[in-house]
């Protein structure tokens, strides 16, 4: 085990997979000579050269399409979007082509491609650059959607995503690139897609969090334990699709209460889907209505104070936990 940031854990995963499989290559804006806008691809171009690490013009639809074609032809592209906000330009390739190809070709063409990059808010990048798109992509059959929250998960999940034969939307978080944690150095360290992780065990209330809200939920859990002697269980689904609902349901059956903390907007969110599935599978175990903490129903404000108000934070999560615990 070595301590490293999520940024370096992703870098390590990319490097190991490039070495392991000659079909793997990285493509995107500034990924090569500039080492990536967020330095996730640092050193890879120098080490592996133009063939494996490819700089593109500012043409999201174009290089996403090149990636889909390359995947159909047998390569395993990793397409980096500088932020996932720009993936909206390439949505036709992701949704209409990558997601549908296996189905519409009657199983002839698989598309083993990873679309990765930061998702959600950063620091004061305003309305057009702060969007959390997991619910959008998770809505379409054919795509897997992955969201790591720790360096180890980032490494293990990215490696699994690259090795997966389906198109994977791999959502990182800019605010979390510098987050440190222990990471196994084993080159075959994989975390299977579709398996949730219980980040903290508890008995009184379950918080389902993902990506940026996981560390917030952990802090909220600490606070609830310290101030109210309430034992909170924190579950990170890690993969949004396929969703490991069994782990969540099992937890809710134990705690009878559920709070969902997410960075996306509330309407038709992943949290809404989880709420529905928990209602369906564990209705008789609930002691309180499920509570969600999401980003405010407004375009992300630029002003720092307003941005902070719009986003989920520890006090909001604590308040929600107290509410479902009737405290």
């Amino acid at each position, binding site marked *: 085990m070595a301590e490293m940031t999520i940024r370096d854990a992703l870098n390590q995963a990319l490097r190991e997979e490039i070495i392991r499989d000659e079909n793997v290559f990285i493509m995107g804006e500034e990924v090569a000579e500039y080492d990536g806008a967020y330095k996730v691809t640092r050193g890879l171009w120098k080490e592996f050269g133009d063939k494996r690490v490819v700089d593109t013009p500012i043409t999201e639809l174009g290089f996403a399409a090149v990636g889909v074609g390359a995947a159909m032809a047998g390569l395993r592209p990793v397409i980096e979007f500088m932020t996932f906000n720009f993936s909206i330009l390439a949505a036709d390739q992701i949704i209409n082509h990558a997601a549908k190809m296996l189905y519409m070709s009657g199983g002839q063409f698989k598309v083993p491609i990873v679309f990765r990059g930061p998702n959600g808010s950063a620091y004061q990048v305003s309305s057009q650059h702060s969007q959390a798109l997991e619910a959008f992509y998770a809505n379409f059959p054919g795509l897997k959607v992955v969201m790591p929250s720790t360096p180890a998960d980032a490494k293990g999940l990215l490696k699994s995503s690259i090795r997966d034969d389906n198109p994977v939307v791999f959502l990182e978080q800019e605010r979390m690139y510098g987050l440190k944690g222990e990471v196994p150095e084993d080159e075959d360290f994989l975390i299977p897609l579709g398996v949730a992780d219980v980040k903290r065990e508890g008995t009184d209330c379950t918080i389902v969090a993902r990506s940026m809200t996981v560390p917030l939920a952990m802090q909220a859990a600490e606070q609830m334990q310290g101030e109210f002697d309430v034992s909170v269980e924190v579950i990170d689904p890690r993969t949004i699709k396929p969703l490991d609902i069994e782990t969540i349901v099992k937890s809710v059956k134990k705690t*009878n209460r559920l709070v969902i903390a997410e960075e996306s907007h509330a309407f038709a969110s992943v949290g809404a889907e989880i709420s529905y599935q928990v209602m369906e599978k564990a*209705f*008789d*175990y*609930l*002691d*309180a*209505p499920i509570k969600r903490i999401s980003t405010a129903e407004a375009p992300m404000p630029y002003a720092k104070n307003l941005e902070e108000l719009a986003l989920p934070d520890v006090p909001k999560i604590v308040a929600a936990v107290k509410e479902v615990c*009737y405290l």
Partner: protein
Amino acid sequence: MAEKFLMPKLSPTMEEGQISRWLKQEGDTFEANETIAEVDTDKATMEMTALAGGTLLKILKGAGDTAALGEPIAITGEKGEDIAGLLSEISSNGRGKSPEKAEPKEEKREEKSEEVEEKVPTREEPNEVAKEGNEELKEEVSETEGRSYDYQRPEAKEDATDKSPKSKVQSPQFENGRLIVSPIAARMAVENGVDLKSVKGSGPSGRIIKRDIESAMESGQWSVVSGQKEEVQTTPSFSASQTQGASAYREETTSKMRRIIAQRLSESIGPIPTFYLTVEIEMDKALEFRKLINASLKEDEKVSVNDVIVKVAAMASLKHPFVNSSYRDDKIRFYEDADVGVAVAIDEGLITPIVRGANRKGIAEISREIKEMASRAREKKLQPEEYTGATFSISNLGMFGIKEFTAIINPPEAAILAVGTAKPTAVVEDGGFVARNLMNVTMSCDHRVIDGATGAKFLQTFKQMLENPILMLM
């Protein structure tokens, strides 16, 4: 406040109930949980208990009258209250009238048909109305972020069946006869038999939540729900029989399929639709087994083949509960032990002394009991409890050289075994002939509870145990 007392749902499939008799008369007071009337449902006569104390002010449905679910059958409240308003409300919306059900009363219908025509729902309509009403109800409840928990509360039906605007939800708890309970609290209440009406809710709008049930159970300040527990019970537990020494039993509500099977087969063949299964059993090992047992016993203690068969049948029947059961229309009664009746011929006929709990007794003990009871049976000195209430019977005519026969089921038992003689027979084995003692056993099965496969599986176990008595130990 005077309230309508509505026909409650007393069985899962009940759609209407007929008042069998009122245990309270107009003017009588009653306590919460006290039985105030008996109601014939589609299944049985059920006790109808009050959910809260009060006075029976007016009986709207007398003994013999039929009322649909949720229809007012009485008015309850405080002594001396004015109920004229309620009565006129009931008669004006037609709910106080006799519904046209299975036994239409011609006179009444003619007399009232004019005023009633528009308002009395036809047989199908009340359900439609109820459904519609329920949907409204659900929407309203979700707005208040709670959950309606109606099943224990017949009054709650009022909201669902009454379309008048005044029945809209006003306050979330009690006042209009509705509780708000979190799903897990509801579940815990059902599992522990806690009457939700006796629990105070501490959640928003008085919602009863998990901790309320927990603290109610801890403090012991809650009352048990009557009448509901039996249906809700999940783990089988046996209740003692009224006959002393007889096997304890548990009852399960007869499934709809089971009831239809029972009904159809009875129509075809008589009250007990019987079918017969015959199996051929190689008795060599059982005979040897008996010889081994007898080697250590005195002459007058020696066990017979039939004693071994009684023991084996008892052991096998416990592995196949339907064989050791009894069909009772709405219920199937499963017995904990096998009380085996053994047919004994006496001068004037036949009597079946019972070996109680034969599954738990040793073969020597079974043998001793049968001998002793058989001799008293011949002297006509058996007590009734010694020959009534078996759970399963065996008739053995092997000693008369009968090869095979069918016996008649002794109701309410579900089966009887007819045992023929064990006779050396040439059997093909490894390409040659060998002599084996073969015995034919025919089981008569009550098809209302035992299906062909059930009976066959029992006989398979029975055969295996006799052919390899050591299996009885398993």
